[in-house]
């Protein structure tokens, strides 16, 4: 093939593939709004704050960003809203060892950011992030462990190395609080026994569930 021939192949081939790309992009843009919830003014306000604080300079969203801090695509599914609000305003008050600095985010700003993150959590991402393989292998348990699983406590707490690190590690919870009555009070209204607690209250737990969970927690030594 002559040089002119390969040159033309390069030019027209590139144009050909770019046109296919434009066609697919056009189709994609048409579909995007159906794959995500409606964008309200509040969602947009939250997105503007996302840009203002350069959140992507540490975090990732839809897996894209800086890989220095957790991915936030599904944050509102995994963490209670009240906790997130307190954490955004002052991360180090909620968790002493938090790497996130105090950025000066106000309570109103935090609410908008959470609305925005709630929007991203509902986008159809082709099932990403995937559920951990281990989670699908866990057998349903009975008693206090079942209650612990039902209310998703492990989203924020660690027992024996497994779970989230937003809240205190519960591996040795009974050594700090051996009294089941304290645990029951704490579950119904955390702030009544721990001032400024970022944990949400669980008034929806039945008396039986409270007893089972408290009995389980005092075995953690």
């Amino acid at each position, binding site marked *: 093939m002559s040089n002119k021939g390969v040159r033309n192949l390069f030019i027209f081939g590139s144009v050909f593939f770019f046109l296919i790309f434009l066609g697919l992009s056009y189709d994609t843009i048409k579909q995007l709004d159906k*794959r995500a919830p409606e964008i309200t003014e509040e969602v947009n306000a939250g997105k503007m704050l996302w840009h203002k604080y350069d959140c992507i300079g540490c975090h990732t969203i839809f897996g894209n960003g800086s890989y220095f801090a957790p991915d936030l695509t599904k944050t509102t599914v995994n963490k209670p809203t009240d906790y997130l609000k307190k954490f955004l305003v002052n991360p180090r008050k909620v968790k002493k060892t938090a790497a996130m600095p105090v950025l000066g985010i106000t309570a109103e700003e935090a609410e908008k950011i959470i609305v925005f993150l709630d929007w991203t959590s509902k986008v159809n991402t082709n099932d990403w992030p995937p559920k951990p*393989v281990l989670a699908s292998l866990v057998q349903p348990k009975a008693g206090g462990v079942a209650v612990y699983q039902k209310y998703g406590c492990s989203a924020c707490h660690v027992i024996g190395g497994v779970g989230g690190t937003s809240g205190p590690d519960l591996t040795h919870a009974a050594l700090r609080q051996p009294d089941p009555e304290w645990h029951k009070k704490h579950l119904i209204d955390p702030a009544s026994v721990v001032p400024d607690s970022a944990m949400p209250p669980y008034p929806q737990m039945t008396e039986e569930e409270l007893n089972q969970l408290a009995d389980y927690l005092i075995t953690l030594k």
Partner: protein
Amino acid sequence: MKYQSQKIAQYFYTFAVVLFLVQVLVGVIAAFQFIWPDFFILNFNTIRTLHINALVVWLLMGLMGATYYVVPEESQRELWSVPLALFQFWATVVTVTLVVLGYIWMGLDPQANKVVLGTQLLNEGREYIEAPRWADWLIALSVILFLVNNFMTMFKSKRWTGIQGTLLGGLTFLALMYLPGMAYTSSMVKDQFFWWWVIHLWVEGAWEIIAGALLAFMLMKVVGAKREVVEKWMYIEVGLVMFTGILGTGHHYYWIGTPEYWLWVGGVFSSLEPIPLLLMVWDAFRTTREHRVVTNKIGLFLATAHAIFNFVGAGLWGVIHTLPQVNKWTHGTQITTAHGHLAFYGAYVLLIVAMIYITMPLIRGVTEFKTSRGYRSFWWMTISMVFIVLTITGAGMVQVYMERLLGLDYVAVKGTYNLWFWIFRAIFGFGFLYGVWLLVLDFFKLGKEPVSAASPAVQEA
């Protein structure tokens, strides 16, 4: 060097290597912040913004410098306007400096990042294209002036060569692909969709076209390869880059809220992306083998190293996690960081360094120059980078296993299980910094020191 106006390249190279040093300096700070987040007065987000923006800007400055050298030579006449090129250079330096000061200001006081005319004043909070809108326009203007100057040089001479046509084609594509990143959209999905037009179609499209053209130029320059042959292979290489790379954008559209057909499109086409990069390696070796006279040994060495690490970093380290079945687990982890580091180093850092070592001696008018520091710089940078990439890859594998498969918490994995990887990465970071320091030193001393008998000669090809 045949034309006085080719000297303008020096300005761009100087700014490029100095920014490279700044980039790696803040990179080392960032590496420490992985171990100790409060290590520095500026938070990680600001440090990382500086790290990646310095990278993009210095590579662009290097590409511009290289173009200002190549175009007069290929057109066989002086550059259309030297004052315009000088104006473009200083205007870019001033803009970049203002943007950097803005980032630092915002880092010290996030509340200063106010919304003015619909966008943030100091930092748009979008990875790689954090530069605020006012700076976007100034950067676009600078690139337009740069393109006008070079195209006018070509038109005036009426001498069209494949190399300069491809080079300027790549640069025009680069300029056009900056535009989709300049509009605001309230949807985070659409935001990322068009963001990838800028990022992916730059590094896996326009920039690779430029790399193909410059590789062809360098091979002609250092071993006296025949134009017809190198240009033919250049067209095949850059053609394959475009045929695989454009639809390869799909590998960024797996999980951001875009339709499922991208899993197929992205998976198939991005898996083919390493092929043209492998062809470039073969091209460099074949051309070298066919020509016995090497006029610039270190130049040839660096050009070949660029081809090899382009293939390894951009090609191999990319293809291992490009299939959706794999990417589902690795997406958003340190595996991506590892790929990013080796790809940028191999594909573009070594490309600019090779262009500097091939054109600077000619600009300074020396036929022989001392090369020992240049080789030392290369080995310090390359060995350090390989180990940086291995430590981050290790951290990524641990992260994928513990976080994605076992369901452990991100913070626990990063803080506890990957700690030693971060420590080793920081140590190798110092090695890389030393290599860059040697490079900057050698850049300023190149051709100005007495030559030992063993050094090779440089002649005009």
